[in-house]
């Protein structure tokens, strides 16, 4: 494990310790504790661990002490977990997740409770009132933008403009959220507008990178009629010999039974590798953005997105 991975894991463990000792006991709500424990104990890929610690790592990169940003990172993590619960509800997925054990009656209040816990966490921050207001605003805005985009998503979209709608969707549901997370980590440390904007753009492009990689790894979304970047790219290759077969499979109501065939065609058409390559172009944009920040901050954050 690299130094940056160790640092991210340590930051994550400290955040969970804060949630366990400072937030959950006062709420005395087993369903919330079960949801948090589930996220903590479920093995997560490296990009997800980095994502869970984004505000804290940014704050530390600027020179802040970990302990001062734990309430901010706990807020961030609980918002992400709440979003996961609401995603499951909307997509009718995750039946084995603890918040679904009592059906919607359990899942809905659990999601709301997690959002409430996220807000409560900010009450533990040691900061001035302007900073607190700015943090509440940035998280409130990002949550509203993401929720609105979730309400607008249409299924099986290969019509004209599908690429624009795809980027508008991941921009609102992931990139804007990551931009807000990086900005928040910076805002807790200082209020220098130019540097904060660079941190926002860094987070935004890192979010695009994470979202596209996620779409490369989970082609199973095709079964639910959600066509992500690899599918959009392959569907755009109208001259490719495999194009007619792909479109025929995607248009079938029974496409859930053909996910493996779609996966094979995407591979054959080079769609997953093309999409992963585009993801790395956004990662490079994230790195380039850091040039507006002091050398020490660049050196601390670049490994974070390059691992």
């Amino acid at each position, binding site marked *: 494990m690299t130094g940056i991975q160790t640092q991210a894991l340590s930051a994550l463990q400290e955040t969970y310790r804060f949630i366990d000792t400072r937030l959950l006991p006062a709420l005395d709500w087993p369903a919330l504790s079960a949801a948090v424990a589930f996220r903590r104990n479920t093995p*997560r890929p490296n990009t997800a661990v980095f994502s869970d610690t984004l505000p804290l790592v940014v704050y530390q990169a600027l020179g802040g002490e970990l302990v001062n940003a734990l309430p901010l990172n706990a807020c961030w993590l609980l918002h992400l977990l709440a979003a996961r619960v609401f995603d499951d509800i909307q997509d009718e997925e995750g039946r084995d997740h603890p918040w679904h054990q009592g059906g919607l009656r359990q899942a809905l209040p659990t999601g709301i409770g997690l959002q409430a816990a996220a807000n409560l966490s900010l009450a533990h921050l040691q900061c001035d009132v302007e900073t607190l*207001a*700015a943090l509440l605003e*940035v998280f409130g805005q990002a949550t509203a933008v993401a929720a609105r985009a979730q309400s607008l998503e249409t299924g099986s979209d290969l019509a004209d403009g599908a690429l624009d709608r795809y980027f*508008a969707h991941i921009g609102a549901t992931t990139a804007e959220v990551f931009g807000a997370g990086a900005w928040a980590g910076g805002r807790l440390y200082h209020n220098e507008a130019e540097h904060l904007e660079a941190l926002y753009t860094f987070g*935004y492009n890192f979010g695009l990178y994470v979202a596209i*990689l996620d779409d490369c*790894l989970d082609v199973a979304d095709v079964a639910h009629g959600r066509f992500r970047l690899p599918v959009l*790219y392959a569907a755009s290759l109208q001259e490719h010999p495999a194009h007619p077969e792909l479109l025929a499979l995607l248009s079938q109501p029974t496409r859930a039974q053909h996910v493996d065939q779609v996966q094979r065609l995407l591979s054959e058409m080079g769609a997953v590798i093309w999409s992963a390559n585009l993801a790395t172009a*956004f990662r490079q944009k994230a790195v380039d953005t850091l040039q507006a920040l002091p050398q020490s901050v660049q050196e601390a954050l670049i490994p974070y997105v390059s691992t």
Partner: protein
Amino acid sequence: MTTLTMPQSVGRMQPDLAQKTREAVQLALEKGFGQEVVRPLTARAEEKLRILLADCGKCWN
């Protein structure tokens, strides 16, 4: 009578998400969306991407 005024924003200027979407689409087009990639990746570059995807799918905690 006192009039309460709320600032439009207490922190960050709201980003132009439509503009950001256009920039992302533009990059995708520059990278060959809609066309079979004219300049294919080198074998080494492709291998690096495969390793990246494998690593992202891996869990290390």
